[in-house]
């Protein structure tokens, strides 16, 4: 019986808890299953427990409670050097006293591979990250992006099945970061390795992952593929944390199947999809994405509720227009519209009617 197939994944966390001081839990009852070959990102603000989870998986922290399994085997008592997990560190942790080739050769030497095999694998790993000619350099002689590639090559050179990455792109500039996001994803998929990636950058998480686990306060708030996470957040935290979000506060006035009427604190009524509100009178935070706000009332269904909005600011962003509105006492209501020939450019000071499809507007916990 192979434990990896069926419900059990390649990596599983089973009711894992972690406390550093014996008083507070940094990770609270974590259950997570990662499939073989999957690219899973742990996303969350700092202090949310995501790095702790990664460190427990790598073996640098021990779980206070629970079981972590790799390929069906419990690794709680296996020291880090025997786990065979590749790891890319935040600041790369390339050994400064060794050349690039020596850095890559290190994991092979400790595995007692013979010299010709080592050289061959080092060369292959360097070629894989397009750094073939840099074997003789010291890490200090490389740029940030090059060091990043070497760190990646070093984590992959001994052909681990699982690679952990701890905010590996944090130190790079925007352009390089976007390029490396693409390269890392491609490499991970080409090699078919399982990747656990930790970041606090939601764009990174959305563009790279098969699934994203959003951490907050030691708990996974939502575990879903990027599109689901963005379009169907299941909690107000996720809605706020992922992407840009307009929040309106109010309480449920009536629920009719998939549409609820929400009475906002300002007294206005709007339509929304009830997600985790079920009773009339529940406090709720309504979440609507800036690009799903509609100005053209003819596109809305008959009888939809609309709101009056005052235009406060118009920003030209090139491909999009970004308009800040005052909607139901909220001064920070953002609308993003595509720069198209027929698109209206709203003038600050003017008043417009806005509305949305009830399915795009999610009534979440307050």
């Amino acid at each position, binding site marked *: 019986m192979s434990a990896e197939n069926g419900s059990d994944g390649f990596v599983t966390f089973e009711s894992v808890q972690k406390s550093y001081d014996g008083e507070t839990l940094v990770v609270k009852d974590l259950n997570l299953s990662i499939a073989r070959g999957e690219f899973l990102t742990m996303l969350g603000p700092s202090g949310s427990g995501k790095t702790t989870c990664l460190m427990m998986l790598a073996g640098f922290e021990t779980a206070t409670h629970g079981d972590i399994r790799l390929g069906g085997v419990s690794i709680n008592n296996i020291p880090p*050097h025997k786990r*065979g997990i590749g*790891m890319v*560190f935040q*600041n790369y942790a390339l*050994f400064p*006293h060794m050349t690039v080739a020596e850095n890559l050769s290190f994991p092979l030497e*400790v595995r007692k591979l013979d010299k010709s095999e080592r050289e061959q694998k080092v060369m292959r790993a360097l070629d894989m990250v397009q750094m073939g000619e840099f074997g003789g350099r010291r890490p200090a002689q490389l740029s940030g992006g090059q060091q990043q590639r070497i760190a990646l090559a*070093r*984590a992959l050179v001994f052909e681990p099945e699982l690679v952990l990455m701890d905010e590996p792109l944090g130190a790079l500039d925007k352009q390089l970061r976007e390029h490396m996001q693409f390269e890392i994803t491609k490499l991970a998929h080409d090699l078919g390795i399982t990747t656990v990636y930790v970041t606090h950058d939601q764009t990174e998480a959305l563009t790279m992952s098969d699934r994203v686990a959003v951490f907050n306060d030691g708990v996974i708030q939502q575990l879903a593929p990027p599109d689901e996470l963005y379009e169907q957040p299941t909690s107000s935290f996720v809605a706020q944390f992922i992407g840009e979000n307009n929040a309106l506060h109010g309480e449920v006035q009536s629920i009719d199947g998939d549409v609820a009427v929400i009475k906002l604190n300002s007294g206005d009524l709007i339509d929304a999809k009830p997600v985790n509100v079920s009773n009339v009178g529940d406090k709720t935070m309504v979440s609507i994405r800036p690009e799903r706000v509609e100005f053209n009332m003819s596109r809305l269904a008959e009888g939809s509720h609309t709101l009056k909005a005052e235009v406060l600011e118009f920003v030209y962003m090139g491909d999009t227009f970004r308009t800040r509105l005052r909607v139901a006492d909220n001064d920070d209501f953002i609308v993003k519209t595509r720069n198209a020939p027929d698109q209206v450019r709203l003038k600050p000071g003017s008043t417009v009617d806005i509305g949305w499809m009830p399915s795009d507007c999610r009534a979440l916990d307050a």
Partner: protein
Amino acid sequence: MTDVQASGPVLAADGRPLKRSLARALRRQKLRALMLIAPLLFFVAITFVIPIGSMLFRSIENNIVGDTLPETVLAIASWDSASGELPDEEVYAAFVRDMIVAVKNKTHTRLGSRLNYELAGISSMFRQSGRQVRKWDPVEDAPFRDKLIDVHKGWGEVSTWALIQTYSGPYTSGYFLNAVDLQLTPEGIKLQPEEKRILIKLFIRTLVMSLIITGACILLGYPVAWLLANLPTRKANLLLILVLLPFWTSLLVRTSAWKVMLQQQGVINDVLVWLGFVADDSRLIMINNQFGTIVAMTHILLPFMILPMFSVMQTIPPSYLRAAKSLGATNWTAFWRVYFPQSIPGIGAGCILVFILSIGYYITPEIVGGTKGVFISNRIAYHISSSLNWGLAAALGTILLVVVLMLYWAYDRIVGIDNVKLG
């Protein structure tokens, strides 16, 4: 930008060469900087450069013979000491004339002391003869050869005069030769007599013991420095205070404390006897020998090893060790292949500090070293304050300085001096 400027020297806007304009612009700044460090420069010159220079000079300076016996030095120059015959009456007469002046100025005893370093007993010859010569007249009482030999038969020996001739020059290599257990004799450079050959042995002992002390400091200091660098800040600060605590105690007190600990009726021996490891009549001798010096000096110099190692280790991020382990290295391999090489600059700095301090150490070996555990610096101190042979002390000091510089150079060649970091 014209082509002329590109090929010739670059000119400033007013047509003067840019280099000169730049130098003018920077001159005020440089002057001000110089003014700021002028007190320090002055202080260093007065307290360091001049004393060191005078010490180096004193080790070869030998004006005393020429100054005290000017005529004799001239007269004796043509005498051939190898002939085995005593010098002419002319030399004796010149010597008496010089001595009359010297006795009047009371400088003849100093010359006697100086020459006594080379030939024992000559000092008293000068003193005895001085009392007689004082009564003589340089013209009426001539000839002097037999009279002088009557005063002291030493004046009738060729070796006495050969010695004066050998040391008549204003400079001498004699002190340096003495410092390495050789002597400059009229017949050339010879080994010192067996019983006087102690300095080379002392030099070697100083170097070997300094190396042992440095090694002991590395072994004891490395784990402490590692702890300091890896403990949580609060505990590390407490430990750092413990490391620095010895600095707040007088060196003499610390050294004396070791005397209390190590002596035969001391704490350690008492405990060993009480535990039954050592019989009461065969208590260990741990003081007034090399062991005592090594123990006490290791203790005293340990902070100088720990502090640079600590400050270097502080700069090594813990992620390196984690990275090594994640790559499959055991704890030991991770330490030895990744952590240790990065801590070498700290060890280097600590070694240089401890070795150079210990090679010139004086107080501790003096107190706990007995006769077998003393260093070359104790010998230098003896020649400065007791035997008053400052020339020899200066020569020993110079050799010590040169040895340290040579070791420093060797270190630079082998390890590289830019590999030394104090933090």
